[in-house]
């Protein structure tokens, strides 16, 4: 805005103000009504939904699948879209920093003196697009990728194998999902990225035997799964060792294994022994 435009605006605004009404008592009535509506809504929500707590925090449970507040779903979904590990760090800081900077600086790069939303097509379209994108990402975040599920299809080697192998693979997949490895590991699209390393391509790094060893005798924060029994651990290790970078992972008949219902809210309910 140049000096002329500024003065034009101030003049127009002075007239609009002169034609307006004093805040008290004409405008304050609306604000008062709004105040009552807001407090009423909060009280109603509190009465309906209460302040229930989940189980006490327990650093040793493996079955809890954490979710952020729903209004953060879009941000988490955005982070999940970023795949290559070397970009993740940049994205976690980069995306929020850039968005905040773009927001703060808005009045400085949008120098169009026009204020009517229909006569600022770029700003208005961008705004509507961003709101739409946030709703869409929130929806995706709410829908997909619960850490108690694994939505990977069998790699080609398994697809070609006999029926027994395929069943074993699928049982392993369900076991891994139910044991909430996803609470700490990212597996394909599902699971939380950390504290543990992603397992999507674990087969590249560890042989089946080594994985079995880790499940029984893990390093510090990870709990031992020894009490699942040798048979179950065999299946899990078999499934995990099949996850390789070359394999066509996502696709085919991926239906998604559901973890035991206890995970999502119930907290510490032990689902280790199916």
């Amino acid at each position: 805005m140049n000096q002329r435009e500024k003065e034009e605006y101030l003049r127009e605004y002075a007239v609009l103000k002169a034609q307006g009404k004093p805040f008290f008592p004409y405008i304050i009535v609306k604000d008062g009504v709004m105040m009552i509506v807001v407090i009423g809504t909060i009280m109603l929500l509190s009465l309906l939904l209460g302040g229930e707590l989940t189980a006490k925090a327990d650093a040793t449970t493996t079955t809890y699948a954490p979710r952020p507040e729903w209004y953060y779903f879009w941000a988490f979904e955005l982070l999940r879209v970023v795949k290559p590990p070397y970009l993740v760090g940049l994205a976690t800081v980069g995306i929020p920093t850039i968005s905040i900077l773009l927001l703060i600086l808005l009045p400085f790069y949008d120098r169009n003196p026009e204020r009517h939303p229909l006569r600022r097509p770029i700003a208005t379209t961008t705004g509507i697009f961003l709101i739409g994108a946030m709703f869409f990402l929130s929806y995706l975040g709410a829908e997909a990728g619960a850490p108690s599920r694994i939505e990977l299809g069998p790699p080609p080697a398994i697809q070609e194998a006999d029926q027994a192998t395929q069943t074993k693979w699928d049982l392993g997949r369900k076991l891994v999902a139910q044991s909430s490895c996803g609470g700490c590991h990212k597996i394909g699209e599902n699971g939380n990225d950390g504290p543990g390393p992603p397992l999507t391509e674990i087969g590249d790094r560890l042989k089946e035997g080594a994985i079995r060893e880790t499940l029984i005798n893990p390093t510090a924060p990870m709990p031992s799964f020894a009490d699942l029994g040798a048979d179950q651990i065999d299946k899990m290790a078999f499934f995990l060792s099949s996850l390789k970078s070359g394999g066509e992972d996502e696709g085919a008949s991926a239906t998604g294994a559901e973890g035991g219902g206890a995970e999502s809210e119930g907290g510490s309910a032990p689902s280790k022994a199916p």
Partner: protein
Amino acid sequence: MAKLKLLPSLPVGLRAPTRPGDPVEKKGPIGHAQDAGIHAVDWVDERTSLSGTMRWVMFRPIPKGTNWFYTLGTATMVAFINQVITGIVLGMYYEPSATRAYESMKYINNEVFLGEFVHGMHRWGSTVMVVLIFLHMARTFFFGAYKYPRELNWVIGVVLLVLTMLMSVTGYLLPFDQRAYWASVVAMNIAGNAPIVGPFTPDIALGGPDVTTLTLSRFYLIHMMIIPGALIGLIGAHLYLVIKLGTTAPPWVRADKVSAGLKEHQE
């Protein structure tokens, strides 16, 4: 020249104030008692000149066309005040330690009179505040209210938004239940991934590699002192600028071409 009417007539029931030179009427003790309130206000006003500020705030002209969208800022403020009040009540019982936090929240829910109601109001009030702050921001965006001369108020607004989001992150851990604990672990892992500052975040925010009592007291301090203090100060600045600059008229409302008030100057 037509007689100018300087003041609107007083509502029924109010007496016009006495002025110097008016005949002094004799008052009984009841009359004096009735005047006590006025005298007290007078006494304060004589030493602060607050009445001028009050007039500036309450009787400021609001441009024509102002509609319900303009109440969203007030609505956000009310949600914030709700958080402050319910937060103070919760703070009377809450203990920020890994061993006691969960129990104290349980105690609030189950034993304290209306405890779960207040806890619920704080929990859901945060959601309401986040929704309202986004709506308020969308309103100022689409109305072009961030343009000259209100750029600074937009900048303050964005800082308020960031602080509000940080409030919800730090508050999420405090009940120290499973949801709180694991969500914070994940949040810290994300922050720890960051380049440069990443490796230091857990040490600063958590007080060590894990979520412990130290983490709780740090989050508690951030959640109930540092950020609220900043929020209160910045909301004050935000509102000062709103009053100083005046609120916008909706962009589709135009001033009448030649208004009665301006005619005089053209003659």
